[in-house]
């Protein structure tokens, strides 16, 4: 009876109680999560939290101290060649042989698996849009092109699971946007994607579900929206007369003004804020407030909603955990 629901929720990657000690120190303490078919799964954590080590264990570069990893039901420890045949991956940077052309690189990796034809190579080259430069040496490629070539390589075997480790690192905004669209497109074909990042905004833009890792432990797994709304968001005002506005806000108990040292908004987002007022308020009341300020003769230059930083989300999530 539940077959339809089950088919939709096929588990492509199952990580169970993963632990890893390096040099006697526990780097990964406890990592468990499931990735379902056709979803974009985010893996969020600050640098040094164990993201990359976990990813390396997923693709058999590092052997876990304890725990199991199943890819489409195949145990990666016992049958790495079977489990890896379902997986395409880029771990950290997309490093290819720079002394060969893009095409030669793809041929090289195609030879490592059965059943990858010339046609398939041409097909993936077209998917990633490298047709123009594919016969040039990889050392002449830009980072964005190497990224594409890496993805083309990962797609060769028609994987059920594509693992990308910080894929937007080093890309320009246009490249990031293209990558995001590309990832959505791939997910549309029924492929599962596993994407790590240290930026919450990125995960928010790309992923359906997310696992949050800190200090080698997964502290939360769930829908991205649910987790983010748990942390709340800020409304930031930039107006002509900040002093007057502050007074008006302070008179209303529904609005809370957040002092600069109190919030943890990413500093990159904060640049260009002069005399901005950071508040916590109900989203529905924003337009009424704009009218009110304009009525009081205060020009409103901008109002924006800002998501809390990853750090803040962590605090909220861990707080929630200790309370619950």
């Amino acid at each position, binding site marked *: 009876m539940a077959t339809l629901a089950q088919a939709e929720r096929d588990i492509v990657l199952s990580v169970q109680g993963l632990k890893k000690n*390096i040099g006697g120190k526990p780097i990964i303490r406890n990592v468990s999560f499931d990735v379902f078919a056709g979803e974009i799964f985010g893996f969020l954590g600050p640098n040094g939290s164990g993201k990359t*080590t976990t990813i*390396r264990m997923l*693709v*058999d*570069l*590092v*052997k876990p101290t304890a725990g199991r990893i199943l890819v489409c039901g195949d145990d990666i420890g016992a049958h*790495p*060649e*079977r*489990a*890896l*045949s379902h*997986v395409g*991956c880029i*771990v*950290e*940077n997309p*490093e*290819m*042989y*720079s*002394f*060969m052309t893009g095409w*030669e690189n793809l041929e*090289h*990796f195609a*030879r*490592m*698996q*059965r059943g990858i034809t010339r046609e398939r190579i041409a097909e993936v080259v077209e998917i990633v849009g490298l047709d123009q430069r594919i016969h040039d040496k990889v050392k002449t490629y830009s980072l964005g092109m190497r990224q594409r070539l*890496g993805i083309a*390589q990962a797609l060769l*075997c028609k994987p059920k699971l594509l693992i990308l480790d910080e894929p937007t690192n080093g890309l320009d905004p246009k490249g990031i946007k293209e990558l995001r669209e590309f990832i959505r497109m791939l997910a549309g074909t029924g492929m599962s994607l596993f994407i790590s990042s240290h930026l919450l905004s990125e995960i928010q833009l790309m992923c359906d579900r997310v696992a949050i890792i800190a200090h080698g432990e997964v502290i939360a797994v769930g829908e991205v929206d649910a987790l983010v709304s748990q942390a709340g968001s800020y409304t930031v005002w930039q107006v002509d007369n900040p002093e007057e506005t502050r007074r008006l806000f302070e008179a209303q108990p529904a609005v809370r003004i957040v002092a600069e040292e109190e919030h943890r908004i990413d500093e990159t987002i904060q640049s260009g804020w002069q005399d901005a007022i950071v508040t916590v308020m109900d989203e529905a009341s924003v337009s009424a407030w704009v009218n009110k300020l304009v009525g009081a003769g205060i020009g409103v230059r901008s109002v924006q909603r800002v998501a809390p930083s990853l750090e803040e989300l962590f605090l909220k999530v861990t707080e929630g955990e200790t309370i619950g």
Partner: protein
Amino acid sequence: MGNLLALVQNETLKVWKKKRFAVIVLILLILIPVFVYAQMKIAQTNEEQFKGDWRANLQDRISDNTRALSSDRIPEEWKQWRRALVQQLQYYLDHDVNPQTPNAVTFTKQFIDNAVNLFIPLMVLAIASDLVSSERSTGTIKMLLTRPVRRWRILLSKLLTLSLYVSLIIVTTIALCYLISGVIFGYSGWDAPVFVGFQVNGAEVDTANVHAVTQGVYLLMQAGLVWFAAMVVAIIGLMVSVLVRSTAASFVTMMATIIAGTILSAMASSWTNAKYIFNVNLELSSYLRGTPPPIEGMTLGFSLAVLGIWGIGALFVSFFVFTRQDILN
């Protein structure tokens, strides 16, 4: 999954595209003419001195060495070596055979003899040292090991590729030597006789088993022995390349070991246990010539066994580490 032949093709292509082999050929093309020129000068001097009479030349060398034997200032080990040499030269003189007929085959024979303990290892290591460590230092190992192929198959394909290139290096060296030196010395000399089977027992050279083979056969025997020594160096180089992350570090480590070997064999005649170290056993072709070994008690069989054991040990370590290690960088 992933058939071995395709993997070997991959590895061979990578070495080829990196132009490692091209560099080796280029070095040979520069060095061999230099040695050919030097050899030609020697031949010219001999010509002037002995008016083409090789017997007089040989007689001269014998009396030179005999004179040195009576000197007190020459250490005992050196005397032993000279005594053996005198006996061999005398043997050639008695049988009316010129050991140094100037032709391309003789030149090749001598070049290989001199190349075995430094030059050939250098060329072999230019490929072996890079094989695994370059994949690690450039990060491509992460792509290589996340494909559905067992790690031992990857390393086996690298080992087979290495054997292929070692063979190719030796064949190319011999071919280039013959072709280049032939321009000056002529391409004959394949059926000139060479004596093999000298057995050095202390100060005496036992000539009971000495028999003549043609230079062609000698060159073949020599090539086989040099191939074996080069393979052992290559396998140990592969092991270091698995253990060390940087190509430069792995190459320097191996070259230092090889050079230490040549120094050791020049001075270790009293430290007899040094004969169990692989790097003093590389000069296998000297057993063919009947040159006294650097350390007493070393024979062809002994050296082959020592090299074989080192090779097997290195293979074991390579496979053990490669299939187990965590790729963290």
